């Protein structure tokens, strides 16, 4: 790809060359026409004088002009020639300058006189005019006009001098054009360099922006109006990049933080256990606690992996008929014991005919996370229930639970990675704030949407997917 500088230079110089060539051609053509017109006018004038000097008397032609009075017809370097012919092409008289040569005989066509350029036998270029005329009638032949016989006169002049002048003009124009193009190159280089200076300045500023100083922006001082939109777009891109890097950094910090705490627990358990000799029960207890912490970490890493796969498009989803009521009941099983221990009542109000065409594994993850979350945050003796509602765009499933303590602002943040209602980490690994983030990513990957609401101590999450068969 050519650089902008090269393109502008080539464009300017190319344009200049075309303009100059065009200008040269026009000037050359005009001057050439003017010179030839003058030349032709002088030929025509000479032909007129010569033709006026011919008189027919007693059926004889009388040539009344003295060749010696017009030296150019007698020969020389800038010679002129004439030759008279009868109308049938028989030569009558010619100028001494022709010596043994003859001019080419030609008749004027549709015009009293016709011009033509040709080359003499000795190679000299000449231009001639042919005139068809009636000679004057003499006093002794008053009736000659009754039987007029026209003559052909061809007058020619050497055009070598004229062509030499035109060649000189051609050289002059060429040299002037080459000089002008050279000058144009120098001017174009300066103009392009100055014109592109703001772009170079912007490029230098961009070059200075590194991953660790994404806060810097491209200054708009001294920027021409054409560059300002680009500068604004670049600054906007930088702002988005900065936000993206910040999110990435925060996410990495969150991941590191969430992994550090259980890791600290495991290390502490092992460190403390190894401080002295212990009996088998104590070792077993330590190993069991470590395993539990490792399981929690594993669960968190598994969620992170799913999130990463969804983000990078590596997660594949099938489309099959999923009976949602059955799915919710199946997903509830692992939590039923914990819910019963806390006195939490669960109600599944979904119609058994409600079918969504989607990925059963993805939907299971969504429902399990929502129920897990609900059991965790529902108050003791509270209630969790699942219902369906028909909307303008299809059917949504609503998971609701009592015991909500979230504010409106907190509710709007529940789908963020590692977000939790308070800063507690007592369930790190299991409830590390990834469940609802995962729900949102999966449902969006399945083509649906999710939203959360909280009011009057109730927390509800609505999920929507394109409907196949409504069993409401």
């Amino acid at each position, binding site marked *: 790809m050519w650089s902008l500088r090269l393109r502008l230079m080539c464009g300017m110089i190319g344009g200049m060359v075309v303009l100059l060539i065009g200008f040269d051609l026009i000037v050359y053509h005009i001057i050439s026409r003017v010179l030839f017109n003058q030349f032709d006018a002088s030929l025509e004038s000479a032909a007129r004088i010569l033709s006026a000097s011919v008189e027919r008397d007693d059926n004889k032609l009388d040539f009344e002009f003295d060749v010696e009075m017009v030296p150019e017809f007698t020969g020389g370097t800038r010679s002129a020639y004439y030759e008279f012919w009868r109308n049938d092409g028989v030569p009558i008289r010619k100028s001494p300058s022709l010596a043994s040569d003859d001019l080419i005989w030609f008749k004027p066509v549709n015009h009293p006189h016709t011009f033509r350029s040709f080359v003499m036998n000795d190679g000299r270029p000449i231009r001639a005019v042919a005139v068809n005329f009636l000679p004057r009638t003499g006093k002794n032949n008053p009736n000659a006009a009754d039987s007029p016989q026209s003559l052909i006169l061809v007058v020619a002049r050497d055009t070598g001098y004229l062509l030499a002048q035109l060649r000189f003009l051609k050289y002059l124009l060429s040299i002037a054009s080459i000089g002008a193009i050279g000058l144009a190159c120098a001017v174009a280089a300066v103009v392009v360099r100055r014109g592109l200076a703001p772009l170079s300045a912007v490029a230098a500023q961009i070059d200075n922006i590194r991953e660790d100083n994404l806060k810097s922006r491209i200054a708009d001082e001294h920027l021409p109006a054409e560059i300002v939109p680009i500068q604004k777009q670049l600054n906007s891109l930088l702002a988005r990049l900065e936000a993206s890097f910040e999110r990435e950094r925060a996410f990495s*910090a969150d991941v*590191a*933080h*969430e992994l*550090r*705490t*259980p*890791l*600290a*627990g*495991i*290390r*502490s*358990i092992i*460190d*403390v*256990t190894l*401080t*002295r000799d212990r009996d088998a029960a104590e070792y077993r207890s*330590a190993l069991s*606690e*470590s395993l*539990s*912490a490792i399981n929690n970490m594993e669960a968190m890493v598994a969620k992170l992996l799913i999130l990463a796969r969804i983000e990078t498009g590596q997660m594949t989803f099938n489309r099959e008929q999923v009976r949602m009521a059955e799915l919710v009941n199946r997903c509830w099983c692992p939590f039923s014991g914990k819910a019963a221990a806390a006195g939490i009542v669960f109600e599944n109000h979904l119609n058994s005919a409600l079918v969504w065409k989607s990925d059963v594994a993805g939907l299971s993850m969504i429902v399990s996370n929502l129920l897990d979350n609900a059991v965790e945050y529902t108050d003791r003796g509270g209630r969790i229930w699942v219902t369906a509602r028909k909307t303008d765009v299809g059917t949504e499933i609503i998971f609701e639970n009592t015991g909500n303590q979230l504010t409106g602002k907190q509710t709007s943040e529940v789908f963020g990675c590692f977000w939790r209602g*308070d*800063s*507690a*980490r*007592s369930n*790190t690994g299991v409830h590390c704030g990834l469940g609802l983030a995962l729900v949102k990513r999966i449902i969006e990957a399945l083509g649906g949407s999710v939203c959360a609401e909280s009011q009057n101590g109730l927390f509800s999450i609505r999920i929507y997917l394109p409907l196949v068969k409504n069993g409401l």
Partner: protein
Amino acid sequence: MRILLVEDYLPLQKSLTKGLRESGFAVDVTGDGQEGLWYAMSNDYDVIILDLMLPRMDGLSILKQLRVKNKNNHILILTAKDTAEDRIKGLDMGADDYLVKPFAFGELLARLRALMRRRYDQKCPCLKIHDLHIDVASRRVWRGDEEIILTSREYMLLEYLAMRAGQVVSRTDIWEHVYEFNSEASSNVVDVYIGYLRKKIEKEAKPPLLRTVRGQGYILGA
């Protein structure tokens, strides 16, 4: 020496409590921020080990409250937050030390011992009262060339008295720094353990080290 551990991640809380108790510290534990503040305000702990991300009240708020109310306990922040900004913020808000998770338990113990020395203006890791030597790191005691074997509680009592050597230490002080919050309150317990300790460290041929100051308490090495 008495420690308050405020940590909400249960596996870590349990293992630390066990390890600290086995290392001879009296440990009170909570996993709740507000409860942690209440404990800290109610007792004179030698060191408070404080997590930052806690339910109901975060660690930095607890730290701020304690410093505002002129509680001069030594505070060690134990957290997964590892950036320089986090450390600077924690230390500038009045923490005495900052340890990032995960950590070696031995390092935590060493830092606690260092904080204890600072609390009682000690520089040397070995305490020496006349011919009584106490190696705080290894928790071993000698009188002259003879090593004295002490139980964990007896050692805690001796170390506390040695840290405050030359000062009269009341029974209440001993109770507050050697016994945990949930220990059965009894004024006799201190006297009984002082008796056990006296039997082990006093030798007939040597001058007495531990004296009773009637109506006030006990004094070691004066």
